[in-house]
């Protein structure tokens, strides 16, 4: 009976995910599409739980749905305002017809993918589960996903933090973050909510960081929560009051990578491979790296949400762009 209910739930959830994906993309209204995308992310979170992947569920809810959704909404609004100012094209474009060549190509691809899935041998060999669990006691942490992220495949995580930093460099070079819309009333409820929830979110983030050593959680979940705190504060108080100086942004976003690289090079100087922890102390090093990474991931995601180089910086800098002069006049 319970088995049947679980099957019905899976079928319903799979149908809902497909329907949300389709309606999020087929609607003409971009705002509606983004909101449906956020709902899609939350349903994906449920699917991750069904697939025994609580780590991915947390990251999906916080990063893929939350932060990405906030970035999309911000970018859409920015684009809309700049088009209104330029009296440019309407944001709505004519709907294309049904290109049958695309559809038949995709049908063929879907058939091939489905066939590939059904042709996977039914006896499950377990992939890398057996070696991953065998080495777990030596890895220094109790959660196999954290062990894979920061011990077995620590290079991946190092480069991933590098990719986040590169994205900030790219975003800063092509855009600057806009001043918040003037005259938008912010009620007392928002201030009260931010005041209560920001410290609480930081506390939960720290808890997730600690929890990652033994259960679902870790630097990415914690970092995403820190970024959420930043997003909430920026939306409440505006980005101008956020950070007094640009150097804090710079150091905040490179801190994790610096610690990670320094430790890696330190291990090499001791005669081991890069990121090969010394026996017995792996757990402590992983916690150090994760704590530093949490700060940087949070900071980087917040800078990515702002979608450009903060304005206070460019006012002091060499470049004063036209737009800004116009805005001050």
């Amino acid at each position, binding site marked *: 009976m319970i088995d049947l209910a*679980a099957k019905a739930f*899976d079928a319903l959830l*799979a149908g809902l*995910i497909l329907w949300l*994906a*389709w309606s*999020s*993309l087929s609607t003409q209204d*971009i705002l509606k599409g*983004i909101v449906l995308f956020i709902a*899609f992310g939350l349903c994906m979170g449920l*699917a*991750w739980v069904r*697939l*025994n*992947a609580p*780590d*991915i569920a947390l*990251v*999906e809810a916080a990063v*893929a749905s939350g*932060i*990405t959704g906030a970035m*999309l909404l911000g*970018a859409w609004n*920015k*684009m809309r305002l*700049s088009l209104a100012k330029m*009296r*440019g094209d309407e944001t709505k*474009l004519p709907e*294309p017809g049904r290109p049958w060549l*695309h559809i038949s190509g*995709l049908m063929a*691809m*879907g058939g091939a*993918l*489905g066939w590939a*899935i059904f042709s996977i041998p039914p006896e*499950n060999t*377990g*992939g*890398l*589960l057996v070696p*991953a*669990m065998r080495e777990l006691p030596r890895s220094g942490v109790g959660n*196999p996903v954290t062990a*894979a*992220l920061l011990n077995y495949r620590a290079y991946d995580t190092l480069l*991933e933090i590098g*990719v*986040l930093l*590169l*994205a900030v460099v*790219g*975003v800063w070079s092509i*855009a600057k973050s806009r001043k918040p819309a003037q005259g938008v009333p912010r009620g007392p409820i928002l201030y009260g909510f931010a005041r209560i929830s920001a410290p609480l979110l930081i506390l939960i983030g720290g808890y997730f960081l600690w929890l990652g050593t033994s259960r679902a959680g870790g630097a990415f979940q914690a970092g995403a929560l820190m970024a959420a705190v930043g997003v909430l504060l920026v939306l409440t108080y505006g980005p101008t009051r956020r950070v007094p100086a640009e150097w804090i942004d710079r150091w905040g976003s490179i801190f994790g990578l610096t610690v990670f690289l320094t430790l890696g090079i330190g291990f090499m100087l001791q005669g081991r491979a890069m990121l090969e922890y010394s026996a017995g102390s792996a757990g402590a090093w992983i916690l150090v790296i994760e704590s530093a990474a949490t700060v940087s991931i949070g900071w980087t*995601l917040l800078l*990515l949400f702002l*979608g450009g180089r903060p304005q206070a910086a460019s006012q002091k800098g060499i470049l004063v762009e036209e737009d800004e002069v116009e805005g001050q006049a």
Partner: protein
Amino acid sequence: MSLDPETLYALTGCGIFLIGLYSFSIYPHLIRKILALNIAGAGVYLVLASMAYQGKETVADPVPHAMVLTGIVVAVAGTALALALAGRISSETGKVDLEEPQDIEKEDE
């Protein structure tokens, strides 16, 4: 025949991937394209995590999970960069797509 949960979710992943790819290729609006790529990516992650599933009672294979986590974070970084580029394009050209404006050719003549 009844479907295992992993097969069901893997097929759902294929479906999402195709929906994303289709929308990416036919809709010209840049934000819609970025949205479509994110949804197609979610389909890939779903297929990967379904392969890691080992049954209700056992722990799943952690290595694909770690790869999906890495993928999600890299996708966010890519999305942020793409959105910044799209914003810059629309503020330079006053358009939300990459179609060549037709009147430029006329001015050349």
